[in-house]
């Protein structure tokens, strides 16, 4: 985990990464299938994976005994704030799981966002979103297995030869499914499309190619959903649809 909070009544004699979290908030559920991110790697049996998801049951359990709790952060954020900004929702849900009172979460949101210079109207919307997510999050008492204390196995990293920090397998960005970053998916209406190529030219990620008739073909595995094509299309032949798919 690279962003985290430790809460305790006694002095905390730890620093840095958290290896045995009781709660992991997954703000983008596509990360669950990401081989680099591995967000649940250190979650112990009984730990809660609090997942921002627009589908599936609220509660389920995986084979490792992780409790999946699915709360929809994105759609309420789109409805209330108008943008898929879900930090406040994530904080509210996690805080409720930790047993923090709503009033304290409200104070914290107010203080944090005021310090950032957020204008009053946006602050109020964030508070509404916080309140809704807090109420929508079920109370749940977390019971995790004891902290794993394994014996440490130290090794000598000596390799006996020169090792270069070079990447020989270059040109590998194509393997990364950046399409998972998308909140909205651009969809071409081929009945309207005239094949003018404007979307093809404007796509900053070269995720649009042209077919034999010069009509755009969107590479959804790599389209990040910036929606520049939707804006640039001179005849409004590209629309945006809320994305809930995962590209593993």
């Amino acid at each position, binding site marked *: 985990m690279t962003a985290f909070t430790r809460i305790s009544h006694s002095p905390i004699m730890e620093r840095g990464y958290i290896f045995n979290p009781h709660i992991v908030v997954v703000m983008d559920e596509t990360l669950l299938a990401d081989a680099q991110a591995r967000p649940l790697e250190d979650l112990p049996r009984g730990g809660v994976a609090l997942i921002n998801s627009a589908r599936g049951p609220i509660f389920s359990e995986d084979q490792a005994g992780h409790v999946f709790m699915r709360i929809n952060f994105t759609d309420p954020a789109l409805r209330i704030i108008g943008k898929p900004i879900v930090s406040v929702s994530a904080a509210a849900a996690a805080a409720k799981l930790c047993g923090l009172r709503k009033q304290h979460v409200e104070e914290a949101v107010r203080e944090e966002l005021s310090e950032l210079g957020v204008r009053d109207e946006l602050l109020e919307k964030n508070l509404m979103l916080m309140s809704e997510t807090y109420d929508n999050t079920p109370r749940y008492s977390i019971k995790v297995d004891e902290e794993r204390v394994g014996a440490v196995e130290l090794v000598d990293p000596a390799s006996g030869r020169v090792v270069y920090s*070079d990447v*020989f397998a270059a040109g590998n960005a194509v393997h990364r499914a950046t399409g998972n970053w998308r909140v909205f998916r651009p969809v071409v209406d081929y009945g309207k499309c005239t094949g003018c190529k404007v979307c093809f030219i404007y796509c900053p990620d070269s995720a649009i190619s042209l077919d034999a008739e010069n009509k755009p073909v969107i590479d959804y595995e790599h389209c990040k959903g910036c929606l520049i094509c939707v804006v640039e299309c001179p005849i409004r032949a590209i629309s945006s649809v809320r994305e809930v798919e995962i590209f593993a």
Partner: protein
Amino acid sequence: MREVDMLTGNVAAAWAARIADVDYIPAYPITPQTEIIETLASWISQGLMKAKLVQLESEHSMLTAAGTASLSGARVFTATSSQGLLYGFEMLYNIAGWRAPLVLVNVSRAVAAPITLEPDHNDVLAARDSGFIQLHAEKCQEVLDLILIAYRVAEDHRVMLPVIVNMDGFYLSFTREPVYIPSKTDVEEFLPPYNPPHPFRAGRPVVKGAAVLGGHIYAYFKHNIHESLLRAGDVFKEAAAGFREVTGRFHSPVEGFLLDDAEYVLVVTNSFTSIARKAVVRLREKGVPAGLVKLVMLRPFPSSDIMEKLRGRKAVAVFDQNISPGLGGVIYNEVAAALYHVKNRPETLLSAIGGVGGKYTTVEEFEHVFHMLMHPEKTQPGKPVFLFRADELAHVQTALRLAGYTGEET
């Protein structure tokens, strides 16, 4: 602002500059330091601080501006990290030689290549011979406190040298902890406005940084820097006593933890001290007489305090979060030199290198170091132990495989 707040190390540093009422802040952004400058810039734009903040075109210009502004009589604060510190490196020696008592916060980050953002102390320790005083923080509170103490020591007319206050990137810079913020009135008492001994004034020209050809003149001034830096150790203790009166918090160049009857002692610096403390506590629970020595002050090197704290111990390990390639740990060698003249010095002095590039060092790894101290027959005298776990090596091998490395490339 409440008296205690949850602050990152970076914001704690900014608060220290704010309550120290600094006049001038030359700046240049670099991760993980940038938040300090952003915070100060925001306060200045809101009228909460009276200082002038200028963004220069590089760290070299930034440090030049910092040193020269300090000579004009301004109280100067600046901050950088890693490559930035090295880019401005030659100016560090100038600033010390000019006797410009500014405070520079270094937010530690390992030096490229390979490039990373996470901390080790090869950046700040590269500056150990520059003539700067060096104070290293374990916690966000110490970042704030040490900066305030740093100004008092730097501007003392018996010292007149600049200070680097070091904090670890990420582990402190982006970690929020409860931090007590002293009131401005308290600090005014502890840290009166800077009284420069020879400021530039209209009608009273002064040449600063004059050329001194001939060798012996240079040697004379260099010795004077050394002598003043050594004096800074005692001035720090005086200042720390004054700081305690004002805030109730005590800081010393060398701090002991569960040390009284300790036979096995670990010497550490910076934020990993917190994890090492936990190892000590866990060993104590099992009846092992373990203890810890934290070095807050790296320059002047607190040799006599170290001698006093380590004499008579059975075995001592020095944890270096740095590596001097071809030698080993920097601090180990300095501690070894300090102990040479101690009659009943520890029989075993082990060098443990860990946390390089921010490599996480677990409490179990620190416990392992203690176990090595308890069984020195299993160690090779003089050979540093490079703390590296089997699972980490496996991860490196996976990364090399993904990078297309077959081992045939050599």
